[in-house]
């Protein structure tokens, strides 16, 4: 896999990457079906503990189009799941895969989905189970449906109890949201629903088994994890909001964006205003005020800034001249022609 990331890539190589990912996942699913008690890779390998954080990091990733959605679109309530969810049957990651094979969406998002099943089981109180359960409830009556609902029921309660509504909402709004988009786009996909249903059932059993022992750990981690995740979500939402703005708000601006705002029409005035230059120089000097190193004390640039601040030097046209009019202040060299 690592070799794939080296060297120039091309479309064929990308396709090969995707197809190799595909095989891996298929095998995962098949192997877990053969040993139902194990569920989705729930038997920890020697490195399982080390890799868990990485799984979560992947999980914190997201589909790119998420960033471009209007923030108001994310509704916290789970009960708002639209009826057409039922048509999903097939899971998120499967639709993701379908799209991946076609488009150039990078592989990481694919990983994210495949990791969800593992990491959410362990730390996130079965977010996808809830999604799935919702889907199952809306499915036309099948023989397995009542059983599944039964097994998922405690999951629901468990999932909601330890967390405040606040921390639940932003985190879970995402998968739900994603569902809606995908289903509208991918309504015509065809899958082996039964096979998926079986896989989910196995996963849920494993979940139930591991739940008790996980409970203590989760309770400890939950607050911290959710808070951190919430912060990150807020941050990313802000970024998305900013991206959406056709007319960025002034308060968002930093540094250079503040100094030369092409929209406020004051730039030319600023450039010709000796006071503005003096102010900028004073700010700069202030920011290095505490630096007593020899280099900073001897800096010719900082000396020039001092001259600007004290109005001993000013910019005239394309040159820097001494304010007294007799040329350049000593200590500052001007470029020779």
């Amino acid at each position, binding site marked *: 896999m690592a070799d794939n990331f080296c060297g*120039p890539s091309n479309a064929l190589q990308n396709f090969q990457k995707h197809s190799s990912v595909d095989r891996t996942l298929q095998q995962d699913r098949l192997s877990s079906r053969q040993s139902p008690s194990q569920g989705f890779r729930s038997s920890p390998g020697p490195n399982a503990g*080390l890799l868990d954080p*990485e799984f979560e990091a992947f999980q914190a990733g997201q589909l*790119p189009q998420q960033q471009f959605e209007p923030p108001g679109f994310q509704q916290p309530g789970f009960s708002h799941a639209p009826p057409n969810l039922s048509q999903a049957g097939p899971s998120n990651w499967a639709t993701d895969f379908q799209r991946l094979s076609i488009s150039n969406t990078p592989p990481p998002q694919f990983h994210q989905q495949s990791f969800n099943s593992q990491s959410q089981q362990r730390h996130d109180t079965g977010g996808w189970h809830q999604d799935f359960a919702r889907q199952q409830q809306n499915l036309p009556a099948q023989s397995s449906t009542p059983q599944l609902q039964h097994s998922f029921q405690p999951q629901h309660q468990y999932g909601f109890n330890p967390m405040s509504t606040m921390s639940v909402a932003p985190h879970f709004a995402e998968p739900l949201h994603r569902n809606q988009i995908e289903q509208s786009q991918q309504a015509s996909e065809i899958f082996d629903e039964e096979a998926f249903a079986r896989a989910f059932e196995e996963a849920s059993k494993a979940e139930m088994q591991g739940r008790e022992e996980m409970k203590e750990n989760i309770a400890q981690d939950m607050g911290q994890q959710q808070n*951190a995740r919430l912060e990150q979500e807020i941050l990313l939402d802000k970024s998305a909001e900013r991206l959406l703005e056709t007319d960025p708000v002034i308060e968002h601006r930093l540094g250079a964006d503040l100094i030369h705002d092409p929209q406020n029409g004051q730039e030319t005035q600023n450039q010709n205003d000796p006071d503005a230059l003096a102010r900028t120089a004073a700010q700069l000097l202030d920011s290095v005020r505490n630096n007593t190193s020899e280099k900073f004390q*001897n800096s010719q640039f900082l000396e020039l800034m001092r001259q600007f601040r004290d109005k001993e030097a000013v910019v005239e046209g394309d*040159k820097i001249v001494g304010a007294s009019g007799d040329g350049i202040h000593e200590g500052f060299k001007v470029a020779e022609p």
Partner: protein
Amino acid sequence: MNGMLEFRTQGYNGYAVKYSPFFDSRIAVAASANYGLVGNGRLYILGLTANGIQAEKWYDTQDSLYDTAWSEAHENQIAVACGDGSVKLFDVSVPEFPVMSWQEHNREVYAVSWNLVTKDTFASSSWDGTIKVWSPNRPASILTLPTHSCTYSTAFSPHSPSVLSSVTSDSHLRIFDLRTPASASNHLVHLIPIHGPGSTGGISSVGGNRQNFPPAEVLTHDWNKYRDTVIATGGVDTIARTFDIRNPRGGPTTLLEGHQYAIRKLAWSPHLSDVLLTASYDMSCRVWTDGSTTAHPGIIGGAKQLGQMNRHTEFATGVDWCLFGAEGWCASTAWDERLLVWDVRAIMGQG
């Protein structure tokens, strides 16, 4: 420190330095009079000779020069980013004037970066909040990507002909994929806040990169030459960060703290996948490892400073690695009107 070569860019304060991808003895320096505040710019074409560094040629420009990039396709051609908003292409075999000049940006152009895969295009980024993609043969830009923020740096991925990135005043790293449809997102595929907390729940976060930082201007970034999803950024908040764009929501993978003032320029080593070189307003150049080669699989650790070069006496603004020969040679330029060529192995363990 022995073996350090020096060239004085008399009267011009260095802004950027680039080794030629074709000749191991050729270096270009983009420099500006009056620290780039007002006045002319000058592009130096320098040769490393047995008698030290000699100026083979130089080109004067009306306005300041802030960056330069050698053509990857033509050994004599080199693009520059100008303070008057123009992008120019010089040919070393042609005296005095540029062979092409494009006047499309509305404000200072801060960065130029050549496409390293197809080698037939290059990108420029500007204070006017846009990135433009150019072909040396065309009279107008091929493509304009808006960022709506002062774009200090843009770079093509060294691994893909159609992926490019930028960092901006608004504290974000942007990834554009030109293969995506030109929809409302203008090819933007990732918008990554630089100031976010570290990887969620990562073991490395115990050490404190769980912190949230205030947004700060990002001045420079570079793609790792070996790991095609890893990007390093540096800027006003003095911290160099690495990101893995496979996990755009995961925040920085590593934080490299040590510079006292803003990082103006950084570059990954062309030889070692974990080694980073930075130039800062604290007048030092530093060498770092991001720990990716020493850490256990799946855990980032061991990120640290390897050495520090303190010879510059004004703000250090440009660094570049030599692509040829031994793995440690690099060049740095600063506002002290000097180009220094030195071997990072000589400063290991310092600072």
